[in-house]
């Protein structure tokens, strides 16, 4: 016992170092999971508040750009609306479909693009009806999925995350694929599992597929930048350019799927069988 104590006293510096590093590695390994650690969840509110200050100041410098973006989106929505009012017969089907989803607007208070796992913090929390696993979109395209919610803030797993996975569809030929992010570049993502007989062209539009419970169908994702033919005869891959500019993300919408409880209970009953 005496020897042990002497050993600890003598090497306390190295022992403390090893202990701290082990704690770090453990925390890091745990945070590689889809859901974030409790440490980050519990401090979410404080971190969100501080980021809000910074964003309040920084926001003024981008007012012009933000305005431009919102005006463009308005114009697009007006155009869509005019189509709806023109074709009265399809009004009901359109309205029917759209009431499945509710959009909650939010402001990005912090955002990163340089890490290998990027998160976004938005200024809406569970008091505004935000819940885990809701989709997040920007005026240009999809952004990510809500992973943690505190009272007034929520953190969103960006598409720029090693665990990010979205079912997508090529608009030109209706083929499905799955979107991942392993390029390390915030502009580009990878679509995998594309059947080999499909020929893609640069500029082909990629949208969300109907199989996702998170995003509505036909949400803009990006455009094909480069298609890679598989050499081994396996499934092809394509590099796509995200429609969303993650570097200048400011205003986003959180998508609430009103049918989600129904879908979840249905899925749960299937699992039980």
């Amino acid at each position: 016992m005496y020897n042990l104590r002497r050993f600890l006293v003598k090497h306390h510096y190295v022992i403390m170092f090893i202990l701290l590093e082990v704690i770090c590695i453990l925390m890091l390994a745990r945070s590689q999971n889809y859901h974030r650690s409790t440490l980050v969840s519990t401090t979410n509110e404080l971190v969100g508040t501080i980021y809000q200050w910074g964003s309040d100041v920084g926001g003024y410098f981008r007012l012009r750009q933000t305005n431009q973006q919102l005006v463009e989106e308005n114009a697009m929505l007006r155009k869509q609306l005019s189509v709806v009012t023109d074709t009265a017969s399809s009004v009901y089907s359109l309205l029917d479909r759209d009431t499945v989803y509710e959009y909650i607007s939010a402001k990005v208070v912090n955002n990163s693009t340089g890490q290998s796992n990027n998160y976004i913090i938005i200024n809406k929390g569970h008091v505004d009806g935000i819940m885990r696993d809701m989709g997040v979109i920007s005026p240009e395209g999809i952004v990510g999925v809500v992973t943690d919610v505190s009272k007034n803030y929520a953190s969103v797993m960006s598409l720029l995350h090693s665990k990010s996975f979205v079912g997508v569809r090529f608009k030109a030929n209706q083929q499905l694929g799955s979107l991942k992010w392993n390029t390390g570049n915030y502009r580009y993502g990878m679509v995998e599992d594309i059947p080999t007989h499909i020929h893609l062209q640069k500029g082909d539009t990629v949208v969300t597929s109907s199989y996702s419970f998170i995003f509505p169908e036909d949400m803009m994702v990006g455009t094909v930048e480069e298609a890679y033919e598989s050499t081994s005869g396996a499934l092809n891959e394509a590099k796509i350019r995200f429609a969303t500019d993650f570097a200048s993300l400011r205003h986003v919408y959180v998508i609430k799927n009103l049918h989600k409880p129904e879908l979840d209970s249905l899925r749960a009953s299937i699992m039980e069988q």
Partner: protein
Amino acid sequence: MNKTLLHSIRFVALVLVQVLIINHIRLGNYVHPSIYMLFIMLLSVTMPKWQVLGLGFLLGLCVDLFTGTPGLHAGATTLMAFCRPAILRFVSGHQKLENVQEPSIGQLGGFLRYVSCMVLVHHFTLFFLESFSFHLIGQVLLRILLSVPVSIFLIMMLLYIFNSEKNRETR
């Protein structure tokens, strides 16, 4: 001013500058500078080593809370704090460290070398921990190579700005 108060202010200020300003600097895809570890560099040489280690861990953890990566920055700053005595001995050579209270540009010969070594250790650990594997080794090395000079430059700038102010006060 009280030393503890000064250090506390420096701690908070550096973390805030790092997460609110420096983390948003985008110079291409590979440059991710850090300046917050300047806090550890400026701690007194006579401070007990285990305290420096503990502060290093705490500092990294604070930055981690903001970036949402628990353990990443903490791991890097802890290792940096652990290497600090060795780096100090290495850069000071035969100079008696007992006379030096706080490492600063004027007091410690080879201060730039000291900063460079510390930044290198920090960035090396940080970027390797971040990739968590060796399969993107080229990209990681490129990141280190490009980020280290930018970080050193920013840190030296900060030091010069604050030092010249301090000199003016004393005059």
